[in-house]
C-alpha cells in the first residue's frame, strides 16, 4: 500500500505567496501612505488616506486592520471617530454636498465595515455612493461605486450581482484608463506628472484581482462567477505585477494569479470553470492546514475542526464541478484526506470518529466512469483541452488514492484494539472489506492491453490486499479459524505471491496455513508453480541482464526459486535460527567425516582380518595335505574362525555406516546447495517497504509485467501432494517444518 506519510506541511507556495503578498501589499500600502503628510507639507490626515484608499482597501481583513491602526496612530484619530465627526455629525447638521466628501464618506464606511467596526457600514457606504450616481462620469467615483456594490453583492452572497459589478467596473473604469495609462507611462508621467486617477491603474488591477481571487472565497461566495474567468485571464496578461515600481511583484497577487490560470487550463480543471477552480484551490488550502494540524496534534479539537472545514470546502467545490474531470480532481484529494485521517488513527491508536463524506465506493464509481471512456468519449468527460495524457493521469491518480485510502483504513482497523486490548472480529471484518473491495475492483479493471487503466503500483496493491485478506481470515475468532477460513487464507496467500513473490516471509506464512489444514506436504506442489513463473519470466530475465533496479536482489530470489530445496527453506526455515541451521550443518559435516573415518577404519580392519583368515586357511590346507595330489577325498572342516565372526560383524557395521553415510551425504549436499541460496535472499525486506511507500518505484513496472506475462494464470490452490522427493522431505523434517 502506498502508506500515507503524514508530516506537517506548509501551505502551497501559491497560497503562502499570496499570504506574504497580502502582508507585503499592506506594508507597501502603509509605506506609500506614510509620507502623504510630508509630501503636502501637512500633518497626515484621514482625507489623504481615504483619497488613496484604492491602494489598500482590497487587503484582507487582518492586514486592513493593521493598516488602519497604523494610519490611526499617524493621524492621531480613530477612523470611526473621524467618520462620526467629519461625516455623521456634519450630515446631521447639513447634508454633505461635495462629491469629494461623499466619496470619502463612502470609502470610510466601506473600510469600517471591512474591519468590523461598523456593522452596517456596507449599507451606509452603498447609500452614500449611490448618492453620487449623477457623478459617475468621473472614473474615481465609478470605481468606488462598483467596488462598493461588488462588496455588497459578496456580503449578500449574490454571485450574479458580483459578476455584473466586476464586469461593469472593468468596462467603465479599467478599459478607459488602459490606453492613457500606457501613454503616460511611455512619457514617465505615471510617477511624476499630474496623471490623476489614470496612474492608479496598477492598484486597480491588483484590487480587482483580489476581489475576485480572495474576497469571493473569504466570503464563501457559493454561486457561479465563471464569466469572470475572462477578467482573470486578462489580469494575468501583463497587468497584475507588470508595474513593479508601483506595486512590487512580491506585494502583488501575480504568483497566485498565474497559478490560478495554470490550474484553469490544467489537467485538474473543470472545463475552465473559475468558480470550481477557486473553490478547489481554497479547499486545498484548508486541507493543508488540516494535514499540518493532524501531523502535529493528532485528533485534537483544532485538527478535527480543520478537517471539517476542509471537507466542507471540498463539498463546496463539488457543487461547482460540472464535469467528471472536476469531480475526479476533488475525489482524488478528498480520498487522500481520508488516508491521512486513518493513518493518524493507526499512528495515535485513537478511534477515528470523524465522518468524511467522500466514499471509496463513489471513488470507484468515478474511476469506472473514466475507465469506460478509454476507448472513446474521454474528451467529453472534460479532458478535451488537456488531451488523453491528462485523462490517463487523472484515472491513474484516482486509482492511487483509492488504493491508499483502502489500505490505510484497513491498516487502521487491523491495528485498532478494543477495550480488552484485542482486535475484535468487527474490526477484522472492516479491514477485510476494504482489502476485498480493492482486490475486486483491481481484478475488474486490470488486464487492459494498453496498460493505461491502472498505475504500475496497483499490482503491488493487489498483493497487499490479498495478503491482508489472508491475514485477516487467520486472525478471525481470535485465531481459531475454521477449515474453510484456513483454505480461504491459503488461496489468498497464493494470490498474493502470484502478484509479489519476493515476500520471503509470506512463503512461511503460506506453509503455516497449509500445516493448519494438514497439508504441509503440499507445500512444494503449491509453491513450485508460483516460483516457476519467476524462474521462467522473460521480463525478469531482461531486467536482471540489464542490471535494472534491485537486480541483484531479484536475481537471488530467482536462483532460490529455481531450486526446490531452497524453496522448501522459504516455506519452513526459520530465518531467526539460521545460526542453528548452520551449526547443524557443521555437525552433519563432522558426523559425516566421523562416519567416513569409521568406514575406513572398519574396512581396514576387515581387510586385515580377511588377510589373517586367508593365511589361516592356507596354513590349514597345508597341514591337512589338502594341497597334495591326489587330493584326499575328504577334508575335515576346520570350522569358522574368530576372524570370520569379526569380519561378519564388521561387514554389518560397514553396511550400517554406509547407509547412515548416504543419508548424511544427501542431507549435507541438500543443505550445502540450498542454504547459501536461501541465505542470499535474506535481508531484503527493505524492498517491500520501499514499494509500499513509493508509487513510482521502478520495480512496480516489473511487477506489472510479471503479472501481465501470465495474465489470467493466477494459480488455483493446489490440493494434492504430487511430488516430494525423499531428500526434500528429509530436509523439510530436518529444518523442523512439521513442528512449526
Amino acid at each position, binding site marked *: 500500500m502506498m502508506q500515507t506519510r503524514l508530516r506537517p506541511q506548509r501551505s502551497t507556495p501559491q497560497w503562502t505567496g499570496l499570504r506574504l503578498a497580502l502582508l507585503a501589499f499592506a506594508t507597501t500600502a502603509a509605506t506609500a501612505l506614510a509620507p502623504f503628510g510630508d509630501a503636502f507639507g501637512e500633518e497626515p490626515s484621514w482625507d489623504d488616506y481615504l483619497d488613496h484608499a484604492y491602494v489598500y482597501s482590497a487587503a484582507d481583513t487582518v492586514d486592513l486592520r493593521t493598516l488602519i491602526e497604523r494610519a490611526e496612530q499617524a493621524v492621531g484619530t480613530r477612523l470611526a471617530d473621524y467618520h462620526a465627526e467629519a461625516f455623521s455629525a456634519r450630515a446631521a447638521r447639513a447634508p454633505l454636498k461635495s462629491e469629494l466628501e461623499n466619496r470619502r464618506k463612502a470609502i470610510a464606511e466601506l473600510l469600517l465595515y471591512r474591519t468590523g467596526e461598523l456593522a452596517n457600514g456596507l449599507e451606509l457606504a452603498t447609500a452614500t455612493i449611490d448618492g453620487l450616481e449623477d457623478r*459617475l462620469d468621473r472614473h474615481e467615483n465609478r470605481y468606488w461605486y462598483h467596488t462598493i456594490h461588488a462588496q455588497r453583492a459578496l456580503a449578500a452572497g449574490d454571485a450574479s450581482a458580483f459578476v*455584473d459589478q466586476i*464586469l461593469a467596473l472593468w*468596462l467603465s473604469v479599467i478599459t*478607459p484608463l488602459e490606453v492613457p495609462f500606457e*501613454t503616460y507611462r511611455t512619457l514617465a508621467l505615471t510617477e511624476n506628472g499630474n496623471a490623476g486617477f489614470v496612474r492608479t491603474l496598477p492598484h486597480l488591477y491588483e484590487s480587482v484581482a483580489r476581489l475576485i481571487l480572495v474576497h469571493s472565497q473569504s466570503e464563501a461566495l457559493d454561486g457561479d462567477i*465563471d*464569466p469572470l474567468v475572462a477578467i482573470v485571464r486578462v489580469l494575468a*496578461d501583463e497587468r497584475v505585477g507588470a508595474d513593479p515600481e508601483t506595486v512590487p511583484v512580491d506585494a502583488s497577487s501575480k504568483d497566485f494569479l498565474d497559478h490560478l490560470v495554470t490550474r484553469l487550463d490544467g489537467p485538474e480543471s473543470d472545463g475552465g470553470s473559475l468558480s470550481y477552480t477557486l473553490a478547489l484551490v481554497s479547499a486545498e488550502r484548508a486541507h493543508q492546514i488540516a494535514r499540518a494540524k493532524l501531523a502535529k496534534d493528532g485528533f485534537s479539537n483544532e485538527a478535527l475542526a480543520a478537517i471539517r472545514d476542509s471537507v466542507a470546502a471540498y463539498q463546496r467545490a463539488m457543487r461547482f464541478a460540472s464535469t467528471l474531470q472536476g469531480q475526479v480532481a476533488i475525489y482524488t484529494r478528498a480520498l487522500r484526506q481520508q488516508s491521512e485521517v486513518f493513518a493518524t488513527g493507526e499512528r495515535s491508536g485513537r478511534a477515528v470518529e470523524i465522518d468524511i463524506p467522500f466514499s471509496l465506493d463513489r471513488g470507484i464509481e468515478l474511476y469506472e466512469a473514466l475507465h469506460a471512456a478509454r476507448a472513446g468519449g474521454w474528451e467529453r468527460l472534460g479532458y478535451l483541452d488537456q488531451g488523453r495524457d491528462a485523462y490517463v493521469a487523472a484515472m491513474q491518480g484516482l486509482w492511487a488514492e483509492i488504493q491508499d485510502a483502502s489500505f490505510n483504513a484497513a491498516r487502521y482497523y487491523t491495528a485498532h484494539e478494543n477495550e480488552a486490548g484485542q482486535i475484535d472480529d468487527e474490526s477484522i471484518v472492516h479491514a477485510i472489506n476494504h482489502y476485498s473491495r480493492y482486490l475486486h475492483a483491481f481484478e475488474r479493471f486490470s488486464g487492459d492491453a494498453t496498460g493505461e487503466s491502472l498505475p504500475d503500483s496497483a499490482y503491488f496493491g493487489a498483493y497487499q490486499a490479498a495478503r491482508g485478506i489472508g491475514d485477516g481470515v487467520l486472525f478471525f475468532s481470535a485465531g481459531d479459524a475454521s477449515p474453510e477460513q484456513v483454505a480461504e487464507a491459503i488461496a489468498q496467500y497464493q494470490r498474493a505471491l502470484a502478484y509479489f513473490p519476493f515476500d520471503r516471509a509470506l512463503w512461511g506464512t503460506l506453509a503455516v496455513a497449509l500445516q493448519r489444514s494438514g497439508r504441509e506436504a503440499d507445500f512444494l506442489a503449491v509453491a513450485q508453480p508460483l516460483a516457476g513463473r519467476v524462474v521462467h519470466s522473460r521480463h525478469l530475465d531482461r531486467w536482471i541482464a540489464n542490471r535494472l533496479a534491485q537486480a541483484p536482489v531479484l536475481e537471488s530470489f530467482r536462483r532460490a526459486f529455481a531450486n526446490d530445496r531452497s524453496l522448501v527453506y522459504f516455506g519452513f526455515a526459520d530465518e531467526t535460527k539460521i545460526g542453528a541451521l548452520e551449526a547443524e550443518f557443521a555437525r552433519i559435516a563432522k558426523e559425516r567425516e566421523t562416519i567416513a573415518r569409521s568406514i575406513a577404519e572398519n574396512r581396514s580392519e576387515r581387510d586385515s582380518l580377511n588377510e589373517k583368515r586367508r593365511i589361516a586357511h592356507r596354513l590349514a590346507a597345508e597341514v591337512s595335505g589338502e594341497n597334495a595330489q591326489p587330493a584326499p577325498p575328504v577334508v575335515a572342516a576346520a570350522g569358522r574362525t574368530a576372524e570370520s565372526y569379526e569380519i561378519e560383524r564388521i561387514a554389518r557395521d560397514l553396511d550400517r555406516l554406509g547407509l547412515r553415510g548416504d543419508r548424511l551425504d544427501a542431507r549435507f549436499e541438500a543443505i550445502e546447495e540450498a542454504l547459501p541460496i536461501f541465505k542470499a535472499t535474506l535481508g531484503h525486506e527493505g524492498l517491500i517497504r520501499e514499494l509500499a511507500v513509493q508509487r513510482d518505484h521502478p520495480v512496480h513496472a516489473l511487477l506489472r509485467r510479471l503479472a501481465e506475462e501470465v495474465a489470467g494464470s493466477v494459480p488455483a490452490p493446489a490440493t494434492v501432494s504430487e511430488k516430494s522427493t525423499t531428500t526434500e522431505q528429509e530436509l523439510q523434517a530436518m529444518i523442523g517444518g512439521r513442528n512449526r
Partner: protein
Amino acid sequence: MNPLNSLDQTSNDQGNLKACAPARARLAWLQAVLLLASLTIGAGCTLSKGEPSAYFDRFSGREAVESQLTGEALAQQKYSMRRLRRDLASFRQTLEQLRRHGKSEGIDRFELFVRPYLATRVDTLVDADDSHFHPELRPFRAELLLSKGILMHELDDRRAVRQTIDRLERDFASLTSMLVLYPTGEAVTLEQGIALLRRQTGEI
C-alpha cells in the same frame, strides 16, 4: 439592475467623447494613432473633469515631443493592439467554456460586457480610416477584425460575423498575402486567416 445595462445612463463618457471631438481634431498625429486618440477619449475627458489641466495643454513644444515619441508610440501601439487581441482571445475562450457547460445565463451576462467592450475598444480602432494608420499597424488591425469575427461567432451573431469578414476582404483586398497572427499566435497569410475564420464560423 445590471450595472452593465445601466452603463449608458450612468456614464457620461460617451457624451464627453463628443465634447472632446474638437480636441482630437487638433491632434493630427494622435488621430492617426488611434490608441492615442483613445487617450483623448479616456484620459483627456477624464482629466477635464476636475483634474489638473490635461497634460497636452501644458506642453508648449507638443509637436517636437510627438515627433520624438513616434518610435516609442508606435511600439506602444503594437504592444497595446497585440494585448487587445489576446484579450479578445480570452473572451472567446470564456464564451466557449460557458457554452460547453451550458451556462446560458453566464453567456447572456458576459455578452452584456463583450458587446460594449468591442464597441468602445475594438470598433474605434478598426472603424477608423485606414489612411490614419501607420502601415506597420495594418496586420494588427486585421488581427483584431479576425478576433472580432470569431468572437461574434461565439455570440451567435451571424450577421456581425459576415460583416466582419466582408470588412476584412474589402479593407485588405490588396493585402491578402500580409502575415497575421491567427488564431493562436501562429503566423499565416491574411488570406489563410480569412479562410480559417470562414471555416470556424461556417461562413463558407
